[in-house]
């Protein structure tokens, strides 16, 4: 079973995230970044599947130089090899272009049995790259899996929907996105950290994928950010300490604000 996991390098949610003033793109360089926490679940699930059988886990990222850190973490967790697609032309790409580059990279890696992604990136939280990738690769897509099992040529997942808990079956090869309910990602062990140093990391540019620079980047984006405004920080309101009448005061506030 050969699995490709898409991992993204994102600005640390604990630090202040912002935009580049010059071109309205997400600032990924000026802030500390890391492997998107939600993609750790995808890596873990791939490792578990391969450990239970055989095969290989390849992690792939599209991102700037620093994105190598995200690959390193995935290799330390146990992935077998990594592919880093980087090219100055990619800066400012939207999900449409990112999915194009990822799709071409996955084709070049070979035909995996399974492509696993996170449920959303912690910076964009669009949750659209998985569906776009599936569309481009012509794969069935099963998203937001909170349980996953493989049986011969099918993958079965459970998904917690609003109206129902669903079981969904897809034929392999397929693309699955996983939620943070699916497993508990491992911490890299000392052995894993040492082993990762010797694992292959391939670096590909757009030309290696046959993607033209005009298809990606800010200029090629199909939607355009016209402006952004920082929401004024919320001003702290009134805080009362409960001296036996906290609930009453709360109700008075609700009444004054016309919620009751």
């Amino acid at each position, binding site marked *: 079973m050969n699995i490709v996991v898409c991992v993204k390098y994102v600005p640390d949610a604990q630090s202040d995230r912002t935009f580049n003033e010059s071109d309205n793109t997400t600032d990924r360089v000026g802030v500390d970044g890391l492997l998107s926490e939600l993609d750790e679940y995808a890596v873990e699930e791939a490792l578990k599947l391969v450990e239970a059988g055989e095969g290989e886990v390849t992690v792939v990222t599209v991102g700037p130089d620093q994105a190598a850190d995200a690959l390193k973490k995935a290799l330390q967790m146990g992935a077998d090899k990594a592919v880093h697609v980087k090219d100055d032309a990619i800066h400012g790409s939207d999900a449409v272009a990112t999915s194009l580059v990822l799709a071409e990279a996955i084709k070049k890696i070979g035909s995996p049995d399974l492509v696993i992604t996170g*449920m959303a990136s912690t910076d964009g939280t669009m949750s659209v790259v998985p569906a776009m990738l599936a569309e481009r690769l012509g794969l069935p897509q099963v998203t937001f899996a909170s349980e996953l099992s493989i049986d011969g040529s099918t993958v079965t997942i459970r998904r917690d929907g609003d109206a129902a808990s669903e079981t969904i079956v897809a034929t392999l090869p397929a693309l699955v996105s996983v939620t943070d309910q699916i497993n508990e990602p491992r911490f890299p062990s000392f052995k894993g950290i040492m082993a990762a140093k010797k694992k292959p990391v391939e670096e590909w540019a757009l030309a290696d994928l046959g993607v033209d620079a005009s298809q990606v980047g800010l200029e090629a984006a199909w939607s355009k950010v016209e402006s952004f405004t*920082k929401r004024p920080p919320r001003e702290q309101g009134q805080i009362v300490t409960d001296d036996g009448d906290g609930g009453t005061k709360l109700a008075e506030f609700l009444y004054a604000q016309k919620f009751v």
Partner: protein
Amino acid sequence: MAEVLVLVDHANGTVRKTTSELLTIARRLGEPSAVFVGDEFDAAKETLAKFGAEKVYRVENADVTDYLVAPQAELLAQLVEKTSAAAVLIPSNSAGKEIAARLAIKTDSGLITDAVDVQAGDGGGVATTQSVFAGSFSVKSTVTKGTPIVTVKPNSATPEEAAGAAADEAFEPTISEGAKGAKVTESKPKEATGRPELTEAAIVVSGGRGTGGDFSPVETFADSLGAAVGASRAAVDAGWYPHTSQVGQTGKQVSPQLYVACGISGAIQHRAGMQTSKTIIAINKDEEAPIFELVDFGVVGDLFKVLPQATEAVNASKG
């Protein structure tokens, strides 16, 4: 006027409020045409007409209803071509976003997800507003290629009535074999709580680890306000409340008129799901809890004392 396609969100023909919102928005951009997938159109017709749908493309094809999102993207792509639609509006839930994503690739069109406002653009097209980075930035965008495809969050417009003909037009899409690769084989319906749906509710009352697993004061207070009940991940992970009620980065993003956090510390991942709420209230034992940085009103105290007292006062004021 050009048609604007609105994908109808419904449960057995009962049209959800988000659809009335989308039809209201569609009228700003052109002439609303609803796309109804399923065989309960009769139940839906009245609502669709009331909110201004001039046409309804009705799709009863079993291939569409059985196979998740891929066939819906295919049928919408076929309708976009047939109608030369000015825009496509889709509800911003997880299935909606996936349909939109696939449709964008199929039709070579720009996509905007999770819009909180949509207006007609200056030179045609659409001008959208999104809220990003856990609500800390508000971003205005336009679509520069193809047919604008926009997924819109609940509560992004106040539904306004406007009579439409809701002319019924059966549409028979061609669904490819490839789109049938994933199928729902089993579906266990959730128990109905009788409370409003979390992402659509005007008021949300959430409980966290501070409830110690006893959600009854949270639920009773919520019911006094007609509110939906949410939970922090800590409460969900402990098995106290279902995952579908989780508010936050990996749960639901809510933006109600009023959000009440009970026994929730206010971790960044929780804030990501609630900090665009209009008014925020917190009850927490710890006066240092970060949630208090966000609140309009906060009570430092024990939720097991404060909530029952507040519930009683609210019920009393209703007389």
